[in-house]
């Protein structure tokens, strides 16, 4: 297992205080004796409609001056009851609900859901389907990280990376659109395969995109990684130790920034991830800056994976050959009666999963994304549960933000990379 520690382009301030904060610095709370001003604590409400909360998140803060004493997150403003809805839909009809949860990396959610159902049904998808799904999941990991990069940079005052990263995201939107017809709500997967095979020229377009992306990453790297303002705003802000990170349930880049080399792709490999050559970036300090470095490096590693996957993309069918699960082709439906009836039966009655349950997780862009499906042998789930990585990551914010300034709270919130659609579900 190749684990690489992220390299620091600049030295960290040597005058580090014992509590892990710099002894001086423009953004660090100053440990001066508290003057007797007779002030009282203040309650400040941030959100739910506030651009810095990255969605309809509401943070109620107890402040002493400008120092955050306590943060109480309130969520649920975007609650749509997806899990309840899923219990009333067929196994394939749940797929459109999954991409509405994390609309920043929808294909990862599409894939994770059907992978869990396929485990439950004991279906092994075709080689081509595996590789295509790996490409799509890595592409959307970049997709999610690029949004995080732009919006986080803009939260601490850097406007340019936002433009750069959204320019690149637009290219991924185009790739989504040519594959699925939709830019955000992709719904690209089906149990046993994909909605459609890759269109003509898609692989080349994807290759062109990943060839060009590193240039943009380098530019953003140059703008942010050694930028004094960015360093001041991120280094030693929102620190969490490795043990705490595990106990609080951190996963994904947030956990790895604390120095825990846990990546589902390496530890519980699926879709032959063990045969791909890629590194898992691991941080040291568990602060916002390390989370930034981990995500930047992850995008470069995803590019490596996409290159390897496109190299090995095999020919052959993308759907499995199982008439109980997969729809016949439209051409067949229009030409022979058997396929027509078969198509009608699957559409109106749905496919059946055996009695049982399956908890399956993939490495999402936000962390470990688990999908738990329970079946009673019928055509729809008894229970469909999403282990939402951002939900668990967000629950740590009271601990991370305690004792920081309000402006640091914004940075900490941004560094967690949350998406409220998935938190509230």
């Amino acid at each position: 297992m190749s684990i690489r520690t992220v390299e620091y382009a600049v030295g960290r301030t040597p005058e580090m205080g014992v509590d892990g904060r710099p002894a001086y610095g423009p953004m660090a709370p100053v440990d001066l004796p508290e003057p007797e001003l007779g002030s009282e604590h203040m309650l400040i409400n941030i959100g739910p409609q506030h651009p810095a909360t990255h969605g309809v998140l509401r943070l109620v803060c107890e402040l002493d001056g400008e120092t955050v004493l306590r943060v109480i997150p309130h969520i649920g403003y975007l609650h749509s009851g997806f899990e309840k809805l899923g219990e009333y839909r067929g196994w394939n009809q749940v797929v459109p609900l999954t991409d509405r949860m994390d609309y920043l990396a929808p294909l990862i959610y599409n894939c994770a859901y059907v992978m869990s159902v396929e485990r439950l049904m004991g279906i092994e998808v075709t080689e081509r389907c595996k590789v295509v799904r790996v490409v799509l999941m890595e592409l959307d990991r970049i997709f999610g990280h690029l949004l995080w990069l732009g919006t986080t940079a803009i939260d601490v005052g850097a406007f340019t990376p936002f433009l750069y990263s959204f320019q690149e995201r637009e290219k991924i939107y185009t790739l989504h659109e040519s594959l699925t017809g939709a830019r955000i709500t992709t719904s690209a997967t089906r149990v046993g395969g994909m909605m459609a095979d890759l269109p003509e020229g898609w692989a080349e377009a994807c290759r062109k995109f990943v060839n060009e992306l590193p240039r943009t990453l380098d530019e953003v790297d140059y703008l942010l990684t050694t930028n004094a303002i960015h360093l001041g705003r991120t280094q030693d802000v929102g620190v969490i130790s490795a043990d705490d990170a595990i106990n609080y349930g951190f996963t994904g880049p947030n956990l790895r920034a604390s120095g825990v080399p846990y990546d589902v792709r390496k530890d519980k490999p699926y879709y032959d991830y063990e045969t791909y050559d890629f590194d898992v970036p691991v941080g040291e300090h568990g602060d916002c800056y390390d989370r930034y470095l981990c995500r930047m490096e992850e995008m470069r590693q995803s590019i490596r994976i996409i290159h390897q996957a496109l190299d090995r993309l095999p020919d052959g069918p993308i759907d499995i050959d199982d008439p109980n699960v997969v729809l016949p082709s439209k051409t067949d439906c229009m030409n022979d009666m058997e396929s027509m009836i078969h198509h009608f039966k699957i559409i109106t009655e749905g496919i059946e999963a055996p009695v049982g349950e399956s908890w399956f997780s993939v490495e999402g862009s936000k962390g470990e994304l688990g999908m738990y499906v329970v079946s009673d042998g019928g055509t729809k789930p008894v229970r469909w549960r999403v282990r939402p990585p951002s939900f668990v990551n967000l629950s740590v914010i009271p601990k991370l933000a305690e004792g920081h300034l309000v402006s640091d709270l914004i940075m900490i919130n941004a560094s967690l990379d949350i998406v409220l659609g998935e938190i509230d579900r």
Partner: protein
Amino acid sequence: MADETLSHPDASRTPHGSAFDAVEQGPRRSDEPARDLASVPTAVPSHPSVAALRAVFGEAIGAHQLHAGDQHVVFVDAARIVDVLEYLQQDADQQYAFLLDLTAVDYGGGKPIQVVYQLWSMAHHRSLRVKVELPLNALDVASVVPLWKTADWLEREVFDLFGVTFTGHPDLRRILMPENYAEGHPLRKDFPLRGRFSRAEQTRRALGLHVEDNYTDFEMGVGRDPQLVAEESDGSLPGDAPRAAPDAAPDPAGDETSAAVPQAESE
């Protein structure tokens, strides 16, 4: 809670008629087979943690199932769940440091609700799913927040959506649904897809919220004289008009105040 006494206000006459009935029922096979949940796999390969659990806890460890090829599920007596999970977390041969997921499953039909703990041992590269069955008339189980901080929000979610009470939880209140939500626990099978109240009633309740309903008692007390807060036991801000009972939202028109009480509406 009093939620269980609520019933759907005449489900046969929903405001939307019967056009949505098919949607609410979802797909069903025409030749629907009899469902048997007991038909779980029988030949289960051994799992090192389950063997150790049986040796340590004996009778408290129930059935051991295998699902989806390689996923081990073990049922545990609800009274011993914290001991079992603490053993799994702390023991050197187990070291399940990660509580990846905590959720619940309601199979409906009066069957017990299952609380599900999904564990992962990074040291041994092993995963295990531990389940507890709670009968519908005794939906409480000890909280595991002392073991894993991540259980805080996950248990709040199960409490919110299933109505399972986690004893010993530091701050057990609703998380996804609003604090004053009175329709019950949405992910229970006896909860209708469109909720228990009519759309009009739901809208009326949402519009009738006071600003301070969005704050917890702790938050309302920040920066204010504790004695003053204690005196205003109804939680209203100084200068506000006196409030009605918290469950009955104010009715601007002033007519049919009894409609605010859901029991009255269902008759």
